[in-house]
């Protein structure tokens, strides 16, 4: 089994690699088009800013490559947001794999102590669908850190509530994505990664 982590100008790539190593799986971190195209599973992680990252992907023709993949693909955090159609973060047109849009969390003026931005820490998710969540119970906690969120829609396979309900995970065809960080979410997060690498298309 060949797992590729897409290398680009974003942080957090090493953490995903370490999490896979803990599962006894080795991954290749690369931006090489052939390596990505020929992988059995592709992970598209990331922490960063939407517009500069999209420009980077376009410059390296990774945008069309990602959209044409046929094997299971997992976007994480910024990866999820870039797989949506549009992000309010610097008014960015994204990959459009999911029709959902990415909006900014607005702190509540009435009581800022209840809802800080970024949404940082462990939150529970519900409405779990697809085999990505096999052996994961409703209301399990996962680690989030983000200031923008994907709206809920037809592709939502897990919902989280913070200020409003948003997509904690999305799926369409071979594309999966989580807003939370499975690589930092303890044993339940590791289970998500394990479920992903067991996916067949």
């Amino acid at each position, binding site marked *: 089994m060949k797992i590729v982590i897409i290398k680009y100008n974003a942080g957090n790539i090493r953490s995903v690699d370490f999490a896979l190593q803990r599962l006894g799986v080795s991954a290749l971190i690369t931006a090489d088009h052939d390596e990505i195209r020929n992988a059995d599973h592709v992970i598209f992680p990331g922490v960063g800013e939407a517009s500069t990252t999209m420009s980077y992907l376009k410059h390296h023709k990774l945008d069309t490559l990602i959209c044409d993949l046929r094997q299971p693909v997992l976007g994480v955090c910024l990866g999820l947001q870039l797989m949506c159609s549009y992000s309010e973060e610097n008014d960015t047109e994204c990959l459009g794999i999911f029709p959902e849009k990415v909006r900014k969390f607005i702190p509540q003026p009435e009581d*800022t102590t209840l809802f*800080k931005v970024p949404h*940082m820490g*462990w*939150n*529970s998710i519900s409405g779990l669908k697809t085999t990505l969540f096999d052996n994961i119970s409703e209301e399990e*906690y996962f680690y989030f850190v*983000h200031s923008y969120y994907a709206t809920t829609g037809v592709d939502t396979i897990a919902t989280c509530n913070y200020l409003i309900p948003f997509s904690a995970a999305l799926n369409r065809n071979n594309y999966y994505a989580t807003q939370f960080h499975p*690589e930092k979410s*303890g044993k339940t997060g590791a289970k998500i990664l394990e479920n992903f690498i067991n996916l067949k298309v």
Partner: protein
Amino acid sequence: MLAKRIIPCLDIRDGQTVKGINFVNIINVGDPVELGKLYAEQGADELVFLDITATHEGRKTFVELVRRIAQNLDIPFTVGGGISEIKDAEALLAAGADKISINSSAVQNPQLIDDLARNFGSQFVVVAIDAREANNHWTVTVNGGRIPTEKELFSWAKEAENRGAGEILFTSMNHDGTKNGFANMELAKLSENLTIPLIASGGAGTMEHFADVFTIGKADAGLAASIFHFREIAIPDLKHYLRGQGICVR
């Protein structure tokens, strides 16, 4: 619902945990990786590793340690101590740190906050503030609380937020080490003034203190060191207690 976070803090010197005694279920309590893994298994939500090594050799050891922590730990962790320029942060990020914490270096050079946030994102930058109260004035201190500065707690915290900090870690030097509870009034005021998350530190002695810091102090996370290291409070017991008090924990 977003859970309130419990964060054990480990002091590291020359790659070894400074405190941390009497753990029966791990062989080497001096090894920060072993201790960190134990805390993670017990339900710690995050960990902070503070490097208190002064020497250049020790710094290199710490970066190697951070890499080993990242390989072994499946929860987020923050590293702090001796970060005064972008390249220090870069080395720690490359080693796998989720966040860095800056304290004295941010006071001496506030622009560092802007630079770190722009280079690595706000989520990577925790600004730690040690402050001491006298005559109703909270003075920001540096070098472990030994040296007072010109800065005042509340305005400095807001400035740090405006410059791009992702979180504020406030330690009350009046409360630190007393085990009489956190500085809840000041924490609540900070929490109301900030839109970014607030980590409370200094004064934890009992489980009730954690309940108070989340309700009265309105903090998003509670940090402590010795009560966890000396096994005065076990994390599973603390979580169980907080849940019973109606506080959302993982």
